[in-house]
């Protein structure tokens, strides 16, 4: 192949293409396009990996798949289809997770270049680290609706994926979800938790029953509700929701009555909660209202039949239907193995029906506007719109970047952003002026990676350190943790070695303010020095995160309001001006996705050194954005890099 275009490709490039070995991570929307482009450009040795199977909602853009392939491995079908068009290419496929330990350093080192076509941040972080460790150039890409971007990640030359802090996942205080929801999203989160309680993996942090430890309820002593027996986690002691539901055979009336009548009555008894709020109204299974109450049934958007809101009685019947179907599905899967459970999936009809119905019933009870199933699906599934056209554009640019890498012309691999509409310079595609240099303070790609962990050391357990801080936030896979100085190993990647530490508080093992932790991940070939700083645990009503990860300690110093205002304003104006300084941060695909999915919400403006990651994509909005920047809510400003920007929406190719 690619012999007659010899004129277009210089001979060196043609040879480099033939000799190269390429890894494509992901066989979704962008992955299919990339694979096609590679096969059509003369690449002869390609490997592709994807964990996922094909879903109907993929077919509008993932063109290597057809209806008959639904349910099959994406990587395998992508390979098969691509080979029918060019049987001479060697394509190896893996139906597996790229984070699996099979794909270690030596695996990555075999490739000339790695092309990411991923849909989630965890995998992106991992491939980023593997490519840095193996010193293999990585081309990272993402799309969201009409927007997208392509960038090169090369150790020492360019920013790595983690050089810019990514918006953390929005979390909601437990008592808002369980006791006092005030927005539709609170009800949707509750409904998803309920799904997991009933059918999914049970997570004690996802309790859906009233939370009697709500500090607001305990303000005034002698509350009737508090007399009830409850355990130290604030949950009334009783059998788990799952066991109870199974014992009554998922009877819709019984479940409905418990969830939407009895539990609500119980909440009402915590009368301190309702002094300033509209109190909830318990619902009766046999008397469900027909109208779409609480939200003006007349206000239906014309012409959008899929997007109409359901009446509560309709919600009730959908609740019953989906409950029946889901409980049968659970039963069927548990017949194979008792450990089996269902996984919530926005594209599964009954799972989605269940969440939409429950969220709307709860919203009705609390006088919160109801949403259509279509909208709830967007919010619950963090759905990023995805179309064939954008993926084609971005995948084309990914392979063009790969050519430059093979020509060893790395400095020409400037990040490129595809915009929804032209900017003030009439550009639809906006390239950076030069490759963005690495962030010297990056806790991943700096020569000696380090970071500050600000946490209440008397409160956090070793298990929480491992799960929440190291695995979830810092994205290590199998950490070993040692206290610097004493050499004590507090977490070991060897199973069972340090399990005894799990429930101990950090302080009990000597991790206090000033402690230094050495974190190692053998698989990622990654070491990090973590400086511990004491920070008081935020109150339960405070929605700030329970810990912070910072580039340096100075970021902890509070700044006054005025300064913040100035910082964000000038920042807004400067988005286009500051261009190739080391401080420059570009919008990463995750932020981009967030923006698209949450058009209505404003991106939080962060007041620390990294506050210029607003995004170039928006740079023609700077004029009219100015008032919006000023508008940004000071109450929500955190001095952390953990700016809790909205729900994380990484799911653009799913």
């Amino acid at each position, binding site marked *: 192949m690619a012999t007659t275009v010899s004129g277009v490709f210089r001979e060196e490039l043609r040879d480099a293409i033939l000799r190269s070995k390429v890894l494509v991570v992901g066989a979704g929307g962008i992955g299919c396009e990339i694979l096609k482009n590679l096969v059509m450009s003369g690449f002869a040795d390609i490997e592709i990996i994807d964990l996922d199977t094909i879903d109907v909602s993929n077919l509008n853009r993932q063109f290597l798949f057809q209806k008959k392939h639904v349910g099959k491995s994406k990587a395998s079908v992508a390979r098969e289809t691509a080979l029918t068009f060019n049987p001479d290419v060697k394509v190896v496929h893996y139906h597996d997770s790229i984070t699996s330990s099979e794909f270690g350093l030596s695996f990555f080192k075999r490739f000339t270049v790695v092309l990411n076509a991923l849909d989630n941040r965890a995998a992106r972080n991992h491939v980023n680290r593997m490519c840095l460790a193996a010193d293999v150039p990585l081309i990272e890409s993402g799309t969201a609706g*009409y927007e997208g971007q392509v960038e090169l990640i090369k150790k020492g030359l360019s920013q790595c994926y983690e050089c810019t802090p990514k918006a953390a996942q929005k979390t909601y205080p437990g008592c808002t979800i369980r006791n006092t929801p005030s927005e539709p999203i609170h009800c949707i989160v509750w409904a998803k938790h309920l799904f997991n309680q009933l059918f999914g993996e049970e997570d004690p942090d996802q309790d859906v029953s009233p939370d009697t430890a709500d500090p607001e309820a305990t303000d005034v002593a002698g509350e009737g509700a508090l007399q009830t027996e409850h355990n130290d986690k604030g949950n009334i002691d009783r059998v788990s929701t799952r066991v109870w539901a199974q014992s009554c055979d998922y009877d819709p009336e019984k479940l409905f009555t418990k969830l939407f009548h009895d539990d609500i009555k119980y909440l009402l008894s915590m009368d301190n909660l309702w002094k300033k709020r509209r109190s909830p109204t318990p619902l009766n299974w046999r008397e469900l209202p027909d109208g779409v109450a*609480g939200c003006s049934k007349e206000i239906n958007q014309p012409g959008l039949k899929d997007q109409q809101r359901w009446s509560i009685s309709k919600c009730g019947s959908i609740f019953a239907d989906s409950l029946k179907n889901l409980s049968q599905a659970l039963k069927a899967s548990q017949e194979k193995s008792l450990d089996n459970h269902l996984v919530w999936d926005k594209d599964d009809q*009954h799972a989605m029906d269940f969440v939409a119905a429950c969220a709307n019933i709860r919203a009705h009870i609390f006088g919160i506007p109801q949403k259509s199933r279509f909208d709830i699906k967007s919010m619950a599934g963090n759905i990023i719109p995805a179309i064939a056209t954008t993926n084609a554009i971005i995948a084309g640019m990914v392979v063009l970047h790969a050519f430059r890498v093979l020509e060893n012309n790395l400095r020409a691999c400037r990040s490129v952003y595809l915009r929804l509409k032209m900017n003030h310079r009439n550009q639809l595609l906006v*390239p950076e002026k030069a490759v963005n240099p690495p962030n010297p303070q990056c806790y991943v790609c700096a020569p000696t990676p380090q970071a500050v962990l600000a946490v209440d050391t008397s409160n956090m357990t070793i298990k929480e350190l491992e799960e929440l801080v190291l695995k979830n936030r810092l994205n290590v896979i199998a950490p070993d943790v040692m206290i610097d100085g004493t050499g004590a190993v507090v977490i070991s990647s060897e199973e069972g070695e340090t399990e005894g530490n799990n429930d101990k508080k950090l302080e009990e093992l000597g991790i206090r303010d000033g402690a230094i932790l050495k974190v190692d991940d053998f698989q990622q070939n990654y070491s990090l020095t973590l400086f511990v700083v004491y920070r008081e645990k935020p109150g339960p009503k405070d929605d700030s995160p329970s810990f912070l990860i910072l580039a340096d300690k100075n970021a902890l110093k509070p700044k006054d309001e005025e300064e913040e205002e100035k910082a964000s304003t000038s920042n807004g104006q400067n988005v286009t001006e500051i261009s190739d300084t080391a401080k420059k941060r570009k919008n990463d695909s995750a932020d981009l996705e967030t923006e698209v999915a949450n058009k209505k919400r404003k991106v939080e403006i962060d007041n620390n050194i990294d506050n210029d990651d607003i995004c170039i994509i928006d740079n023609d909005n700077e004029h009219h954005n100015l008032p919006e920047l000023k508008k940004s809510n000071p109450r929500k400003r955190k001095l952390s890099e953990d700016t809790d920007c909205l729900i994380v929406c990484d799911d653009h190719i799913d």
Partner: protein
Amino acid sequence: MASPESKSPEQSEKNRKYDRQLRLWGDHGQATLEAAHVCLINATGLGTEILKSLVLPGIGAFTIVDGKKITVEDVEPNFFLEADSVGKSRAQVATEMLLELNPDVTGDYIDEEPEQILSNSPDFFNSFTVVVATALTEKTLVLLSKRLWELDIPLIVCRSIGFIAYMRIQIKEHTVVETHPDNETPDLRLDRPFDSLKKHLDSINLDEMGFKDHCHVPYLIILYKYLEKWILEHRTLPKLYKDKQQLRDMIKSGIRRDEHDSSNSEENFEEAMKAVNTCIRASEIPENIKNILNDDRCINLTAKSSSFWIIAKAVRDFVDNEGKGLLPLKGTLPDMTADTEKYITLQQIYYKQASADAEAVWRRTLQLLRQLGRPSDSILEKDVKLFCRHASNIHVEKGSCIADEYDSKVFDTNIIVQNLETPESMMIYYVMLRGMDKFQAEYNSYPGEFDDQVEPDIVKLKTCLTKLLSEWGCGPLAKDDYVHEFCRFGGAELHSVSAFLGGLAAQETIKLITNQYKPVHNTFIYDAVTSNSGTFFF
């Protein structure tokens, strides 16, 4: 877990397949897409890439016009042609392969050269929604461009040559109701409240409220109350930054404290302060919308006027009468902290007024249809409602005919002269492509197409360019680099460049079909070597 008897509305397989794109253009956008018939001229690698990205999201039908037989060279950059299809009709094979991508799409082909069709059956193109063309000769391009300009059918011309991508959109006039602006300003009319709103707002007395009520008043009411006070003092709207700051301070002074918990302040007042900037402004018709309403096509409707202009005229009449100088009300409220009842009451007031406004525009539309002798069902009420909701963001795009660029009597070459003065301007590639056109017209091949002809072709291409540039009043090119590069390309197509442009052209086609989002205005050029791109209006 599928169960056929489920009552959920979102159950059709089609909806599930298109779920991710419905979130961009909605059911109505999808419906227009499914009613569209796209014509592709020449199933080159680029052509099939474009069509692929239209078949996947589900256009109704396509027709491929291509008289060529498949050659070995065709197969290479074209994913949809296989080696064993050499010698077969390119239109036929491409049609068959593309149809496999989506069973909802129908497609057919005409195994003829576009030149033949243009001369033998000039009505052939009448029924297409959009025509997309690749690899056209200068002569055919000019004929096709003129024909489609007369028919008022959009034409998108694309080229992928070596590392260069080019796209030109020809539309006589394109009207967009849903432009999907990034920042929509709320339409609240606090400075000029309509009667029902004024009555409601005046019935509320903040001072007499208990704490619980006071902290659940929607911020819009707070804004109105303090704006009223401000205007009483100053006799005008707050305009300057310091005026608005004063207004904010006034609002701040109105915040009450909870007797039990002094730290608990009123969120709705904070929201009101923050909303001063976006919500306090004079209600008026934006300048660009005034221009549309004052356009001759709006004022003087004819029997052939499109729905857009008829509704625009109805809106114009509304503005002059019921609207008292303002557009129909949008009728939507931003989210705000409030108790449900107060919010819903307010929402209803806005909604009802917006309905009444849209109703008035609808009546006027019917009246205009009668005057024009058109059936009353030629415009639907829901389209009028949609128009009214987006009235402050509508857009009219006026284009130019491609054939004019080939007619030295009408072609304004200033844009070329000016842009060539800017270093690295993408305009140089426009010049190169035009030079290549000329070369092709004279020698019937691409420069550098045959390996043994590269050197002589360089000289010939240079001559073509010099002629062209002197016709346009430009000096000769400073460097020969571009000429060498284009001769090296030999007219060959690079798959990744075609894939890139295929996505982009399909995107523009979808914008034209759905009448949503503003299209590229009107020429796009991309250099895949540098990642630079440019947009020009010819």
